[in-house]
């Protein structure tokens, strides 16, 4: 178990969140699907995210059956697949962004593409590309034995999700299994911009902290600086996805840069 402690101390995600915390603010985490509208623009947008205030970047692997995603992200990933995106290209994206920025770059993926490549092989290649770890929306710790071993072996963060529906026992188990941070789902639903952040989010964050999580970040339904400010008051990080995907869809890399800059104005805690 001492090995786990060593790895925790070198967690890239934890380091990025701690750096933001030291500056008296929450961390900003931006999501982009790889290969949308193409691989080059994903890389350019990822660099723009980092240069305009994102501390961590989440690169999604387009998947044929994205059950946790709403229409905007579904449309983007379906298009990326139709244009011929291959899973191995995600490592090119990660490598290109990490070589040009200091942001921690995580990959968000449904689990079957990882199984298909081989959990160990996928982890090895992600680590080689400079990736920080994986966010796994349809993998729960109960099924994660192979991933626990591979993430320890290659020093990768494993970000599991907790939800408003998680029981105290499951919250504890998931927090214990996570490394880097815990992803708190703000609402019972799928990804997509919403007018207001669910009041459930604060409760989920509190429960995760109470279960021992040092870093808890909130995602789902966050799309503007006002919502970022609201969440930054109680969470260690704020995750924005759909709004950034809509930005790159409608205005390309420049729109991603502008939105990121605006979102980052909400990060500072008023009485931090």
């Amino acid at each position, binding site marked *: 178990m001492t090995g786990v402690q060593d790895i925790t101390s070198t967690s890239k995600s934890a380091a990025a969140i701690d750096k933001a915390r030291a500056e008296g603010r929450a961390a900003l985490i931006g999501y982009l699907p790889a290969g949308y509208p193409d691989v080059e623009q994903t890389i350019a947008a990822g660099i723009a995210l980092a240069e305009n205030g994102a501390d961590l970047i989440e690169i999604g692997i387009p*998947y*044929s*059956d*994205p*059950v*946790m995603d*709403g*229409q905007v992200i*579904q449309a983007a990933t*379906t298009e990326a*697949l139709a244009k011929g995106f*291959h*899973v191995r290209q995600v490592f090119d994206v990660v490598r290109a962004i990490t070589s040009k920025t200091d942001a921690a770059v995580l990959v968000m993926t449904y*689990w*079957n*593409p*990882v*199984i*298909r*490549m081989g959990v160990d092989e996928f982890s090895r290649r992600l680590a080689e590309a400079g990736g920080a770890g994986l966010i796994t*929306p*349809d*993998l*729960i710790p*109960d*099924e994660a*034995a192979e991933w626990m071993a591979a993430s320890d072996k290659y020093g990768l963060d494993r970000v*599991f*999700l*907790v*939800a*408003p*529906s*998680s*029981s105290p*026992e*499951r919250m504890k*188990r*998931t927090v214990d299994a996570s490394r880097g941070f815990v992803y708190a*789902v703000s609402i*019972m*639903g*799928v990804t997509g911009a919403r007018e207001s952040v669910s009041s459930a989010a604060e409760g989920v964050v509190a429960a995760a902290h109470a279960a021992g999580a040092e870093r808890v970040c909130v995602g789902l339904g966050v799309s503007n600086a006002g919502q970022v400010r609201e969440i930054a008051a109680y969470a260690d990080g704020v995750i924005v996805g759909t709004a950034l995907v809509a930005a790159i869809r409608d205005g390309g890399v420049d729109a991603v840069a502008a939105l990121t800059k605006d979102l980052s104005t909400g990060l500072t805690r008023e009485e931090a």
Partner: protein
Amino acid sequence: MVRPMVDAPTTGSDEGAADAFLQGDRSLRHAPGPYFGSYGGRWMPESLIAALDELEDTFEKAKADPEFVAQIADLNKNYSGRPSLLTEAKRFAQHAGGVRVFLKREDLNHTGSHKINNVLGQALLAKRMGKTRVIAETGAGQHGVASATAAALLGLECVVYMGAEDTRRQALNVARMELLGATVIPVTSGSQTLKDAINEALRDWVANVGHTHYLLGTAAGAHPFPAMVRYFHEVIGEEARAQILDQAGRLPDAVCACIGGGSNAIGIFHGFLDDPSVKIYGFEAGGDGVDTGRHAATITLGKPGVLHGARSYLMQDDDGQTIESHSISAGLDYPGVGPEHSYLADIGRVTYEPITDSEAMDAFRLLCRTEGIIPAIESSHALAGAIKVGQRLAAEADAAGAGEAAGKASDKIVIVNLSGRGDKDVATAAEWFDLLDKNSAEAEIGKEGEQL
């Protein structure tokens, strides 16, 4: 309550299971899940785990509650019309090597297929959980119609997700569901097929899980669905086993069923899993042929992966993206399969083989003309398989010589699960056999070889 959480087994734990079974020191019946060998489990978003726990808990308590068991028995008898008949198909059997063929008549159930067994059980569980709304996915509409039926009977709101293409091709089934009070939502995401209807139902479930039960239509998905759906269909195998002992005085040599997700198959197989003398066959949809890439032969050609909550065989590409399946039978047109089938395939207890569209349609017509029964195209895959199995049994009997140990072909017995009736498939069959007036609406819709 504190729920014990079980870690997934590592792969390779299946070895020895078939041997152990054949040596008689363990039963394959009533496998509780969550794992069947290395298959099954819960590959699901955390948001839904609490609902799966609640469902599992409710199901386990209901199974042990005599009142629930009596409720199911009463509905099966007085609503669905169970027990379904076991009919000997003597004229059809002449084309199956001259063995005796018996049909388990799930086509005679209310709503026309085995699907009613599962929906009544799950709808009762939804009531027990205090849920007021059920959602379901459907391909051609059979499970949607069955779900709408159960919801109407028990006073539940019902929403059915159906691929947009399917809603157009199966307009009558959409009308049927609406007549029963259900709302049908066409799914336009992804490939707009059954798997996307399941994706959309899962998205609905995540958002509405507080008052909604997802009434999954097959023995697939996350635990407890595979074991639970099997439980509600076990009645098929229990009845068939008792009926064949009564009518023929002995167990069959073989049992045949078609496999999409595999609910009718696991229902009838279950009755015979612990009878080593009974060979068991599952027939997958071979579509245009397994060498064409246009098929749904998941176990025959797929590789293990996770989809819709379970680890099982899966049609997928080298990147782990799900491949679209193809079959003339919408009910078999699914790129996954229930995890218990994957396990039974690996340990060799059940043999899975593909049947092409063409073979299935030949068997469809044969049953119509020899027995006066129009089968579902799904079930026609089992009939086509039974013809092959019957011919093999006959050849073995012949090879063994007349009399003695092996017996005559006419002493061999094959049971086929006739999982549904073919009324829904008349337009597809009419198109296939070129029976349509060229100016008819069906011919118009069906041009370019489309499945109706």
